[in-house]
């Protein structure tokens, strides 16, 4: 899914294709997703983060279809800004606010998988530690309702996120939002391959789902 202002769409496609998936970019005004088994909302700055990150993107025509797919159990993954959009759209609980230290953070972070019952963590093991680049200003997850399932946590606390959550899932586990960028950790040449186990898990659950 590409919204005006998204910018990680090509990276996600590159990484998924590297892992053998067949991935295509869909413009936010599309409504017909026939033939598509799973959805990734990539990172970026949809609508320039005007008002609140993800606030406007959630109304894009395509999001109706994404909601329908999510309800039907299809795997839906939101990365960074995609995570923020899923929260605004009510597909994940909570919301993302500015980092505790009010600075954009772009660096490698270590995270720990704490729940493998989701489409993103299915191939990982509980307690598994991964090095994945974080890249966000509004990465600070808050969930007053305490209903969100945090499934991956930061081993340090880079941004003040509640429960140090780095990734959050819905109760069914088919909708997941993650703040760090697994697609940026799929090639040794670029510094880490730890994102593969997550994206491979996601692709695995796609074939499982269809």
């Amino acid at each position, binding site marked *: 899914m590409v919204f*005006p*202002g*998204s*910018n*990680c769409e*090509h*990276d996600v496609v*590159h*990484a998924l294709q590297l892992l053998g998936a067949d991935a295509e970019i869909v413009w936010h005004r599309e409504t017909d997703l026939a033939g598509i088994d799973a959805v990734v909302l990539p990172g*970026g*700055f949809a*609508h*320039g*983060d*005007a008002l609140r990150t993800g606030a406007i993107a959630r109304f894009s025509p395509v999001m109706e279809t994404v909601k329908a797919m999510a309800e039907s159990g299809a795997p839906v993954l939101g990365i960074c800004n995609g995570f923020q959009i899923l929260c605004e759209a009510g597909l994940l609980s909570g919301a993302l606010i500015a980092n505790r230290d009010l*600075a*954009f*953070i*772009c*660096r490698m972070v270590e995270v720990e998988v704490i729940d493998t019952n989701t489409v993103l963590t299915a191939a990982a093991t509980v307690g598994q530690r991964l090095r994945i*680049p974080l*890249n966000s*200003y509004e990465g600070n997850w808050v969930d007053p309702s305490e209903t969100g399932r945090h499934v991956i946590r930061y081993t340090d606390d880079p941004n003040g996120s509640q429960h140090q959550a780095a990734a959050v899932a819905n109760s069914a586990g088919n909708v997941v939002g993650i703040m760090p*960028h697994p*697609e*940026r950790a799929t*090639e040794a*040449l*670029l510094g880490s391959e730890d994102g593969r186990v997550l994206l491979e898990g996601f692709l695995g659950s796609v074939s499982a789902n269809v």
Partner: protein
Amino acid sequence: MSEEAVHRALGMTDAEYDSLLAILGRDPRPAELAMYSVMWSEHCSYKSSRNHLSRFPSEAPWVVVGPGENAGVVDLGDGWLAALRIESHNHPSFVEPYQGAATGVGGILRDVFTMGARPIALWDQIRFGPLDIPKNRYLFAGVVAGIAGYGNAVGVPTVGGEIAFDPCYSGNPLVNVMCLGVMKREQLVLGTAGEAGSIAVLLGKPTGRDGIGGASVLASASFDEESGTKRPSVQVGDPFEEKKLIEACLELYEKGLVVGVQDLGAAGLSCATSEPAARAGMGMDVDLDAVHVRESGMTAPELLMSESQERMMAFVAPEQVEAVLSVAERWEIDARVVGKVTSGDILRIRHDGELVAEVPAASLTESAPRYDRPISQPEWLEETWNNVLDHSEAPDVALTILRLLDDPSIASAEWAYQQYDHMLFLNTVVGPGGDGTLLRLKGTDKGLAVSTDGNGRLCLLDPFRGGERLVYEAALNVAVTGANPMALVDNLNFGNPEKPEVMWQFRQCIEGISAACEHLGVPVVGGNVSFYNETDGIDIHPTPVVGLLGKAEPIPLRPPRIDAATDDMELWLFGPDVIDLAGSSFEWVLHGHLGGRPTAADPSVASAVLDLAIRLAGSGMTPVLHDISDGGLAVAVAEVCIRSGVGAELEVSDWRDLFSEAPHRMIAGVLPANAESIQSLAQDAGVTATKLGTFGGEHIEIRTPDGEHVVALATATSTYHDAIPRRMG
């Protein structure tokens, strides 16, 4: 106000006004006066520098577009082209650091995607006064936030740069930004208006009264009195609009829908109409009533001078206009047909149905004044050269190293580049924190390396040698990643050109840069000049900044990294052991001394060391390869140790070797098994190779004739990483 008074208030000299009268053969209309005043300004016309810029070598077989267009373009082979450009936004960043820096990023991006290229990376070169002054902390924080805020949101990674602090920048920070773009050959577009009949389509943000202080003079002279008060002093960047503009333009290029494109920067519509028309040897009819505006009641001069951001002018064949407008609509940006290219050379502009300007298009560009300003070598120079520091006393080496690591100009810049997305596009192989940046070019086996370098102290002490050494330093930074230098852009930040000493520094730096480029066969394909960097009559150090692009083919599988040292590695030094402390960080940081004369670069040694660096990087036999610059050998070793998390022990024959900043030197981390082959490589290249010691342990232990000096790795590490955060609080 009489017309004379008006042209002076617009910054036009009487002589310039007279030549304008000669061109028109009549008094200029207000809108015409507005256009000439901006097009003939120093910023747009380069009137003080043009004659000198022609000195730069700009030819090479791989140069596709040299200076004169919005960005330089070089051939990478296999149908790929790279576009590069550097630009300064010094004064706006002093007025409002966040927006000044942000709009600087927006402007350099437009220069690059105007050429048809997709911008893939940015580098920032920023200089401020000392951080113990609150205003400098405010400027530094604001500029970094502005670069991050715009660059991250527009979706172009900032993958490297340079940060320096010196009292001379206290009242006048330098904010330079370089951009690199890539494209397939077919996508190259030039800033030409094309043939008669082509349609001018204005894309992007509505035009408002942005950055047109000058127009207020006209307005109050001839139009509404109070409009002067309506003008914003600061422009606000909109990265979201720019992102859509980039995608829309790239789609136009892919579909081959445009004949030419010109970005709107300084001089806005005046420039975006006259320049493309002049380049095409055509004229143009422009209808200002068709321009989409942000504010009502804008006058013709205001519309023509406005510097509103995120706008592009596309020139389109009549039958393609519909297609262009629908691409714009799909990307949700505004687009208006505002003009038509005409045969002949006259630029005709209408507003409210009236003719407000009718002038020869080329006269705004080619007939702009040129000045050969007086040049003279400063008297103080000889004196400064003789003012050398006495080094008979050995310092406390350990303490000295810590003092240097604590200097914000040497310390880790992580505080800044952590705020920049430096990984987007999955190209960043060697990112910020090392020497040159190394990017891969997906879909090829090519690597693109870039290093940007400036050194105000060196250029103050000897502008020729300083300029020359900048180029060689950048070349070595690029070479240690395995890349061959291929093209250079430069940003010339200087003081007041009306002072003969400043013009002398300017000329000398250009000579030095040119000499090095000629020796290396590296063409200068573009750049920018920023004059009048002064506060209360005190000029900044002459601060040319160079951005050097290199190509590695094939890209090394395991390129050298600064953080790859392990405790089983030997530490080697390559290059001449020359002691040169003039202008060094050692003399400046430890003694507040700025004197003596820096040694000249040695072209043949430079070439030898560069070749060796490229071979070593490609061979994979030097997991660590790091050039020696600010702070000398001691700091270079400390940086490798800190980044790699391992200590080192080494021996030198003279403590001054540790802090010498003589050019053409680098260190390497080498596995013992490879030591011999590396020595012979160095021998073949004719480069002195010296084993200094080994990596390992928890300390940096240095033996000199005066004894043993030990710095705990932990102390060095925290000093190096905390230097900037500690000062920023």
